């Protein structure tokens, strides 16, 4: 019992300490950052946030861009992954195993290696500087992981639930609406968060496909702040940008925490 508590504490420190440091940095004056132990008359400031939010274009613009790309790529991913994983879960053991093997291969493939090819395609289709175009490769890259996660969720559902619905006369679409989607919603929520996270953090594709400064996504915009001066690293504004950038994610996880944690299928099978 004591060992577990210690472990949990260690994990919390491990994961929260960098975030706390970032939060601390974002509220410190430049002076306080370089001389942390000196007594200063002004230690705390909101200047970094002000400078980030009042930049041109305003930082909120990047936030909205990222939200748009993240939302669209998550939607596209689920639109394809839900039907695919449903069929995969209904397939014979051997063929589904082969497909899963390929999917794992795709998921493990370092996507940076696809990068040049993707760039050529984007150039050919004239997709530079378009946020919609960014969501398409994100959705494609997230597909293997999403299909694998959702296939497991579909396979875990008791088959008799769907059998009973077939006897009752529900079509495939009706079964999705009334049975499958409500019951795998926890898995859909957690998959959506992973896909959204990937798109939120993605850097190389966003860096090269988007040059219009009004259409940058968060990681690229942050990198621009960090590299805005050759003489110094603007730690304060950079930290402020990271804090603002992580707020939507924290909100997202808090909203979806319940469906992820709750096991909706309890009571479905056993008497």
């Amino acid at each position, binding site marked *: 019992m004591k060992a577990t508590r210690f472990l949990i504490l260690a994990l919390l420190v491990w994961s929260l300490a960098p975030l706390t440091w970032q939060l601390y940095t974002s509220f410190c004056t430049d002076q306080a950052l370089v001389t942390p132990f000196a007594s200063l008359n002004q230690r705390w400031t909101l200047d970094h946030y002000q400078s980030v939010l009042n930049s041109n274009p305003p930082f909120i613009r990047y936030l909205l861009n990222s939200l748009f790309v993240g939302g669209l790529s998550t939607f596209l991913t689920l639109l394809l992954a839900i039907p695919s994983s449903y069929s995969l879960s209904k397939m014979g053991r051997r063929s589904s195993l082969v497909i899963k093997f390929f999917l794992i291969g795709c998921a493990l493939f370092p996507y940076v290696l696809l990068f040049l090819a993707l760039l050529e395609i984007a150039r050919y289709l004239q997709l530079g500087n378009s946020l919609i175009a960014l969501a398409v490769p994100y959705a494609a890259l997230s597909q293997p992981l999403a299909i694998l996660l959702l296939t497991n969720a579909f396979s875990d559902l*008791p088959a*008799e*639930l769907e*059998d*009973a*619905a*077939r*006897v*009752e*006369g*529900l*079509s495939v679409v*009706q079964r999705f609406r*009334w*049975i499958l989607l*409500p*019951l795998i919603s926890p898995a859909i929520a957690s998959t959506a968060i992973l896909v959204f996270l990937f798109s939120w953090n993605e850097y190389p594709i966003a860096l090269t496909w988007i040059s219009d400064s009004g259409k940058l996504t968060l990681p690229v915009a942050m990198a621009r702040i960090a590299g805005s001066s050759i003489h110094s690293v603007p730690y304060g504004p950079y930290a402020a940008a990271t804090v603002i950038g992580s707020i939507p994610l924290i909100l997202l996880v808090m909203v979806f925490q319940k469906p992820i944690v709750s096991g*909706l*299928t*309890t*009571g*479905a*099978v*056993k*008497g």
Partner: protein
Amino acid sequence: MTLELENVGRNINKQWIVENICLTVADNECLALVGPSGCGKSTTLRLIAGLDPVSAGSIHIRGRDITSLSPSERSVGMVFQSYALLPHLTVFENLELGLRVRGVPKPERRFKIKGILDLVQLWNRADNRPAELSGGQRQRVALARALLRDPEVYLLDEPMSNLDAQLREDIRPELRRLVLEQRKPTIYVTHDQHEAMAMAQRIAVLHEGRIEQIDTPYNLYHNPESLFVARFIGRPQINCLKGDSGSIRAVRPESIRFSDEGLSGKLQSREWLGNSQLLFLETQQGVIRMMTSPDQGIPAQIRLTWRAEDEILFDADTGLRSRR
């Protein structure tokens, strides 16, 4: 005949899961399918329901060929082993779903569901979710869903196997009242032979995808057509002794008597069963099970005998009944 199966089979990867199933079930008749696990009894039920495709043969309901119809076009009511209730919907919504997709208008849906839930005495639980109900109540909701369809055929797949023994006994008369009084052909799948005998007029014993014997409970017990049926029906199990010229003599444990002459044996162990006792007697022919009254004393010199008409003869090679 209302429900007819003619040479029905199901084939997966060139292997027959069930083969040559021929059954007829009349109105007002309950037929039980029994057999060890993996014998194909659930598959047979799924073929009738249309949940699995039929590979061979044909199925008719009231003369209508339903072999290739979808489950919803067949007019079957099915109760699943796990009840298959949707955990995120209330009892009322669970029942309403089928009516809704069939386009029944809302006031009529409510009226019908009220009627059925009154029948199974669960109207007061209409707004509860399945997780809030007991096992017996869930089972009645599953039954109500089947009744609500007013089907031509009732299919019950191990409907009581998730309930404890006491509850099963309590629910049996209830199940008879609700399902058998619909006067529709009913197929009852179970691995419990007592349940089969209690519920059904006729029992089909399945073994490795084939029907071994279809008969009344009485005939299955007293006139088994094969050694498999003789061994499967009846607890404690029938005694099998070597006979002459490759035959097997089978004798029910309650037919064995103590006497002055016959097979000699030694008491190995005994089980008290309340209204009887079960003796395990070691003989040259192996262990013999003997069922006798609880106040039967054990003689010092054990010799066993039985009446010739209580003995059933089987061919050791084919396992089939051989008549004298």
